């Protein structure tokens, strides 16, 4: 096998391989669409996070603006403290409401951010005061049944 033929083939192979990695990164993965790796951190406390997972998106008006980075339990208040990273190009007011939502009945769980009207913005490491916990379907159903039973009993 000729030297220059080997060089040519190895060149083609390496170019193809690197092209494949580029394709995976850009077209399959989210290297272009997310810049949330670099961003500011915001905390929020929830009494129940339901099925929220790490790396779940944080959305404002349905647009992904960040991702959940850390979830832990506050040992004093027994609340879940969720930390997420938010794209620095989006600023949220201090009275933003963070809620835990599910897209559809079986869809992914995400953090919804509803911006308020405060002129002061949340800084890096800041905390969202107003939160709305996850809706737990079983509790909802048992509540409904309990109410129903009470109504029946009251008659």
């Amino acid at each position, binding site marked *: *096998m000729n*030297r220059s033929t*080997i*060089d040519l*083939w*190895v060149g*083609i*192979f*390496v170019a*193809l*391989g*690197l092209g*494949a*990695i580029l*394709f*995976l*990164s850009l*077209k*399959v*993965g*989210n*290297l272009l*669409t*997310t810049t949330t*790796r670099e961003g500011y951190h915001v905390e929020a406390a929830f009494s129940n996070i339901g099925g929220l*997972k*790490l*790396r779940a*998106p944080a959305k404002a008006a349905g647009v*992904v603006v960040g991702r959940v980075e850390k979830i832990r339990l506050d040992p004093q208040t027994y609340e879940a403290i969720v930390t997420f990273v938010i794209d620095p190009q989006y600023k949220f007011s201090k009275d933003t409401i963070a809620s835990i939502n599910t897209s559809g009945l*079986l869809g992914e769980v995400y953090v919804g951010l509803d911006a308020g009207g405060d002129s002061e913005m949340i800084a890096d490491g800041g905390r969202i005061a107003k939160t709305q916990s996850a809706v737990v379907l079983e509790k909802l159903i048992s509540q409904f049944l309990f109410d129903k039973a009470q109504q029946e009993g009251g008659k």
Partner: protein
Amino acid sequence: MPASVLADGLRRIGAGTRRSIARLGFAARFFVAVLTHSPAGLRRIRLTLREIYFAGVLSLVIILVSGLFVGMVLALQGYDVLQRYGASESLGILVALSLVRELGPVVAGLLFASRAGSAITAEIGLMKATEQLSAMEMMAVDPLARVVAPRFWGGVISMPLLAALFSTLGIFGAYLVGVRLIGIDAGSFWGNMQSVVDFRADIVNGIIKSAVFGLIVSLIAVFEGYDAAPTAEGVSSATTRTVVGSSLAILAADFVLTVFMFRGVGVL
């Protein structure tokens, strides 16, 4: 009588264990020797290019064809399950995650072990059996630097590229079946995929996996070749050991790596 049979069996297990531990130690020392001889071997980059040609370029066809078919089958089977839950739009996610995280590195690694790993073992083993390695040593040329290191690095460099190509062709195959054949919307196929597949957590981890598998296969292949008994039988059994050993090692390492890599993303 039964007691002596038992003792015999235990003794055999003991001897086997002792041998495998000794061999493992020998392999570890060999690995260090390969690394220390690598600078001398890599200085002559042409030797490594040659091995990338043999390990990488010559594995291209099998990797590309297998990737395409695995992707197409994955799309058919995945669609069958997903459409029951009305989630056929998620086909792109299913295929991309399976390929990038698992099937790309693992299947490409297994194919690489049987295509390139066995060839490396057989070549080095035959060079040993025909005294070519001894001849080199007697010509004051270190076979570790001249023969082993280039083959090792050729494999290590080729493997991640092959795995990426496997995943790419697989996703293309799934696109053909899912979008062109079944008729899933192309926009939701790619869009859902992009929204879920993460660059660092999925793609980089997949590349790291394939690099580790490349290291494992190449090391086992050069070690078995170098350690082969210098006979026809020795070379053939060394080749078998390479394929079996590196396949098992890939699967075991895959489990360990998966535990560490995807611990935080809800898998565990």
